[in-house]
């Protein structure tokens, strides 16, 4: 098993035992910046190496998936989970959007088995972050005029993760495989180590969030464990049908099957304050994230390889 995952487990254990271990917020920020930039740069370099055609169609289909996923999740959360409209919409936004950390573990997993993935995947990561949040807000509020879309667009499009991923993509593309060499020691060689530290902190946070899963606990647990599978299947099928390779198909499944915990919480907190913020966080961080990194990713790879053997 990929050793970075043990760091997540260490964090969970330390958090569950209420250790005083805690990464300073500034370090959490540094680590997440490094991961976002590294993913972007890597994608950009790959884009420079293998330019490809037909990107536009892929982009449209991927964004469409981002718009559709929350529409599938919302009714399930509303009826099966008996969540309020605001809460169901918030869950839809979180699960329709994507988790950068899960994506990073996916990259690390594929890297460990030397499985290549298509260079446009980091771009898809960027593309999938926002649409589901917009749909989630619309599901919660309808088209009321009161929503300050300008403010929200600013929050979403100029949020840290989009800026760093997109900035990294462009810089990696401009620099190309040769130009990036001097930056490799920090962004590529340290990638796994940085991911390990980041997962340690994620484990500590997940342990805390998990504790807040009290009301509706059974539904939330079930949803957090079962939702990734159909969502990831949709992602894998889309990836396979737009011609991604097995690695790329796996990563699109990872994106579809993971829940956001950076962009979505911030945006939903501002746009739909009535939604309970810890509910989707507890699910996505406390249940789905561990499920995905321990069980989901290998499963999605197996599924992607099976699809490609068809």
């Amino acid at each position, binding site marked *: 098993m990929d050793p970075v995952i043990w760091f997540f487990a260490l964090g969970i254990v330390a958090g569950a035992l209420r250790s005083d271990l805690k990464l300073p917020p500034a370090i959490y920020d540094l680590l997440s910046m490094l991961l976002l930039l590294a993913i972007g740069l890597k994608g950009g370099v790959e884009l420079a190496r293998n330019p490809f055609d037909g990107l536009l169609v892929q982009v449209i289909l991927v964004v469409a998936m981002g718009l559709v996923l929350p529409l599938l999740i919302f009714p399930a959360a509303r009826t099966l989970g008996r969540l309020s409209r605001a809460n169901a919409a918030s869950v839809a936004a979180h699960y329709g959007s994507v988790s950068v950390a899960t994506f990073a573990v996916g990259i690390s997993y594929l890297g460990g088995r030397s499985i290549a993935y298509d260079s446009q995947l980091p771009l898809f990561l960027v593309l999938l972050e926002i649409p589901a949040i917009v749909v989630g807000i619309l599901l919660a509020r309808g088209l009321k005029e009161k929503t300050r879309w300008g403010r929200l667009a600013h929050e979403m499009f100029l949020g840290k993760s989009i800026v760093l991923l997109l900035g990294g993509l462009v810089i990696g593309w401009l620099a190309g495989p040769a130009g990036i060499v001097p930056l490799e020691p920090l962004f590529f060689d340290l990638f796994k180590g940085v991911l390990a530290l980041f997962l340690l902190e994620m484990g500590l946070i997940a342990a805390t969030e998990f504790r807040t899963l009290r009301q509706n606990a059974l539904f939330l647990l079930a949803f957090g464990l079962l939702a990734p599978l159909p969502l990831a299947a949709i992602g894998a099928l889309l990836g396979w049908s737009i011609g991604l390779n097995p690695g790329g198909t796996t990563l699109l499944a990872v994106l579809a099957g993971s829940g956001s915990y950076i962009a979505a*919480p*911030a945006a939903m907190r501002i746009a739909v304050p009535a939604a309970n913020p810890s509910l989707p966080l507890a699910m996505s961080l406390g249940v789905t994230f561990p499920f995905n990194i321990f069980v989901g990713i290998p499963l999605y790879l197996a599924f992607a390889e099976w699809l490609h053997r068809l």
Partner: protein
Amino acid sequence: MAPEQRKLVTIVTESVIEIDLCEALTDLGASGYTVTNARGSGSRGIRNAGWSSNSNIRIEVVCDEPVATRIAEHLREHYYADFAMILFESDVRVLRPDKF
């Protein structure tokens, strides 16, 4: 210049609304504000600043009575129901009353 009475309004709330709130304070007539990072516990549980979604800020505004009242009204209307937040007010003397 004799010191003069003003109100000190202190707000402790979720850091996610810092930008919106500070904009609102200026719009409501505050001549300035001071923000520090904080953690804490209250009716909405422990907020221990481990990461951004779970951290507090503490905002102070020195202002005159009408502005203080407007701030309290605004927060009650827009934030009290849905956000971890407390607000308290006290009397202070300032040195350059024209500033506030």
